[in-house]
């Protein structure tokens, strides 16, 4: 059983995907908090409290990749899992270049996401 106390922050401006991922994380026993933008997340106490961040890449406002850079610059070591529905290899290359903990494509494989979350939260 994974740690029941780990908090997953989910950053995606697509409400239905965010809600789905929150439910998925909770079904695995995590706590989950959703944010509609990187800015909202950065302005919350989840920056400090989250054990793992799952972020979409392309959002109105700050992108997931920029969010990762910002967290790196702040010295954060919280694991970041990037997800995207984009199909262009250019985007994938950019995503991998910022060294996320995991990089997954939408629709993601549940088993892969489960493993990424487990590794990120040290379970």
């Amino acid at each position, binding site marked *: 059983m994974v740690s029941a106390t780990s908090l997953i922050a989910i950053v995606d401006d697509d409400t*239905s*995907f965010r809600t*789905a991922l929150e*439910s998925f994380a909770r*079904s*695995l026993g995590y706590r989950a908090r959703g944010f509609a933008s990187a800015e909202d997340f950065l302005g919350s106490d989840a920056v400090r409290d989250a054990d793992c961040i799952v972020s979409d890449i392309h959002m109105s406002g700050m992108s997931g990749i920029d969010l990762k850079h910002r967290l790196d610059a702040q010295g954060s070591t919280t694991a970041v899992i990037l997800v995207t*529905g984009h199909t262009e290899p250019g985007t994938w290359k950019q995503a991998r270049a910022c060294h996320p903990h995991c990089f997954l494509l*939408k*629709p993601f494989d549940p088993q892969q996401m489960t493993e990424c979350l487990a590794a990120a939260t040290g379970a």
Partner: protein
Amino acid sequence: MSLAENPEEALRKSEHRYRNLFQAMAASFWELDFFPVGDMLYRLKKSGLAGDFGAYFAEHPEFVRDMMRATRVIDVNDQTVALFGRGDKQELLSSVEPFWPESSTHVFAASVVAGVGGAPNFSTETVLRRIDGREFPALFTVCFPEDTMNKGTQLIGVIDLSDRVAAQEALARMQAEMAHAARVSLLGELAATIAHEVNQPLGAIAANAAAGQRWLARDVPDLDEVRAITGRIAEDAQRAAGIIARVRAMASGAAPEAVLVPVNEVVEDAATFLRHEIRQSGTRLKLALAPDLPTVRADRIQLQQVLVNLALNALQAMAGREAPVLTLRTSGDGDKVVLTVEDNGPGIAADHLPKLFESFFTTRANGMGLGLAIARSIIAQLDGTIAATNRTSGGARFTIVLPVHVSGTPDHTKV
């Protein structure tokens, strides 16, 4: 006519000349006895039922058909037998009713209204019917000279427009095919966007399904969670289906059909189509839509195609620039509806302006250069205009002007 001749001889010669002329004409000519119709109109007027013949005819097409039945064919020329008949002139010499398809009843009514109203003649394009039932496009002309009107006889001319209409239809088909090809090319440019748009709800559906399985697999299944999840799955499936429907409509090669279109809705559809493109480029979308705009007659998908094309051009022109703003505006201007697409990009180079709407002119690496040429041909078919200018504040502005649909004209025809 010489004064030396006696009046009977002159009349006979005049009649002879008329008969020769009547027969020699290249067009189909008909001599009609309209007298019984005059009687019907007189009685209708006296009954007080019809203050306005035009309105009465529109409400009582059966009365118009009765007028046709009462209009006797006195004589027709050889051209008429060739065009309308089967070689036997006699079978044409009945009433005019068989030659008017129901869809053309209003044209006959309009010719009567014109004659009664004192017009010297009436001429229009319509569809007429041969004695064997086949219909064909025709130019229908009727003259109302005073002397023949008093006698109750009338001369009408018919020119077969089949060839011209066939040529126009071939041209329209070709234009529709070009527009379709451009739409498919446009969809190709948007393929990545469309894939992403579909992946969003699919991703949510997959995540929800996985979550649902976990909730069910618990020692005590959490049915409240599962219930909420299945509801969301249904919504996302609808959302994905909506995207597919929009794409399919754009990909459709169906013949364009002019219907009454609320312009603001088409603008909103186009914006929805490009929602992802707009969001991803960080562009601010401004919709300035005038309320209570009259409708225009257009093929909805083609009009949407034009707007998507212009908006996509604008987005690409603004790529990499600070604070890009795309403005889609509608306004009414008398009997016109004006649509504008504005950006705050670099504007259009002066030497590009004159050839902007030419085929195969493109400044884009992946563009075919057909977008604007097709846009112009689509708008021209709607009797509208499209023009490009640079805004004084910077950026480009494309302006489309479309005529407002006037009630009373057919609202559902092929373009």
